């Protein structure tokens, strides 16, 4: 399973941006406009698609797209 591709697809659909335009340095809220209801949808979709349970503590550290990718990389 390509984790990076899945993450970008989920972020892309929630932020209504083309996946090709999304870069790791982008802030989820500031750059991509992901508000709190969308952030929770994002977490749930990540969990279900990538079969993990993300702790509140880990989620609180995810400010950018790169932070999400790093989280999965560190678990691999």
């Amino acid at each position: 399973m390509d984790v990076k591709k899945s993450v970008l697809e989920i972020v892309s659909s929630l932020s209504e941006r083309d996946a090709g335009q999304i870069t790791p340095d982008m802030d989820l809220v500031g750059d991509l406009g992901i508000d709190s209801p969308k952030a929770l949808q994002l977490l749930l979709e990540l969990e279900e698609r990538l079969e993990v349970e993300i702790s509140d503590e880990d989620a609180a550290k995810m400010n950018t797209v790169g932070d999400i990718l790093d989280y999965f990389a560190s678990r691999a």
Partner: protein
Amino acid sequence: MNPWLSDLPATVPEALERAGRAFPDRGMAIFDSRGRKYERRTWTEVHQGAVQAAGRWAALGVSPGQPVMISVPTSWTWVDAWLGALMRGALPVAVAPGAAMGAAEAHVRKVDTLVERLGAKYVVTSEALRRDAQALGADHAAGAVLTPAELAGTTPATFSAPTPGVDDIAFLQLTSGSTGMPLAVQIPHRSAIHNAAATDEAIGAPHGGPSAVWADSLVAWLPLHHDMGLIGCFFLSMLAGIDFWLFPPTAFLARPRTWLDHLGSHGKSFVPAPNFGYQLCVERVTENDREGLDLSSWGSAMTGAEMVRPETIDAFCEAFGPVGFRREVFRPCYGLAEATLTVAVDLTGNGPRTRSLPGSAGSDFGLSEVVCVGSAIRDTEIQVVAPDGSELPDGEIGEVRVAGPGVFAGYYNAPEASAEALKEGRLATGDLGFMWQGELYLTGRIKDVLILHGHNIMPHELEWQAESVTDGGGSMRTGAFSVARGPQGEEAVVVVETNDRDADKLNELGREIRNRIGRNLSIPVADLVFVRRGQIPKTTSGKVQRRALKAQYLEGQLQRLDPSQD
């Protein structure tokens, strides 16, 4: 008088004890953060948990009258810690847990400031927050953290339970202060009990009595740190003796369908929620997803805590009509933390009604029709007044003022803010509206506040973040406000004065401001507007005139420096 209301307990500890005794089979269930599993306790067990936690607070040296902060997600830990502090006679203060994603640092800073300002000895929160606070040098927070495990591991001490008077303060409810610093609303036992009971009575008006007569359960997803969750759900169920099914807001926001499923499976039920929650159901529960739902047992869907939007009501009825939802189930209501919770409720049960805005008045919310939020609950009086304080006749717009037992006992340690909110014994709500045949219609606000997803945000909070990027903060060179953008509700707009003209520089600055606000407040800026220095309207003393600025923005009079940005 309604017989049930004459038999009310006087204080919160009495209410809790009575719930266990009078309704032995009823109780409360709390779901996990994803809405999958739940743990249920009877009201007797809830009471026992609170008594035990009170003993733990006593053992930890917490004395009556002392603020104790609770900042954990919706859970039994929250309930035990909060009720336990109250039973100890201390002042529980619920603080929203950090954002679901990101913004960990901002949350630590907020908790740190609150611990210092309230003089709280403890804040019940995670071990992670203690570590982060230590790393950031947030010493007040770091020194006050008590983890759920540490609280649970404390051996309860025996203590003489204080017998609170009805006018003693039961708890503090945080709200956004007009200066951007949070204020703590003091709620006496009398107000908490009266408001929850009177809300229940008002909700029951078209059903022939309080909820115990016609309903089995309340199925909610509101946070307990919000007045609508605390008073309108938790206290109301405890007093009424119905079952309370509680989803953490995270579980609802991640998947609204789970909540709708439960609504259909716990007998006749009702629910309070802000407008955006109903909107989210429309958007996120797709047509295929609606199959198998049965909303016919839904008795009342209270809608309040932010502007009730006619288009949301229409869209919800259209989407869920085929699975048994009826339009008359919708019941608009109005309230605020300074009134404990409820001020007005639609008593008719005939479905939401609207009126056109009177005269030439324009609405702040982009609405031409405004929704009736009903009539005053028991013992409560609503007035609409002109700026000079004189009462206005039906159909004329003015500030909404409220008198009654729900009106709060001032802010904790903030006499000036208290004096500003309480005028001649009446609560000056800062909301605008008009009366029509005994019913209230809300049209806008005098107070500068953004209400995003049911939560109040002061414009200063956004402005300060933007200014901290441009010049260190406090320069009065930004103005923030909210605008209505379709049925989702309000969105944040930030206007920034600058001398820069270079498009690349402005783009970079814009990005930095959006990200600063995003990381610290978890709020996306829907529109960021750069204007020349001196373009933001100000008073002679240099204060930003946000209403004038917003009017200019809406009329397209602001000269944007950044035509490329949307």
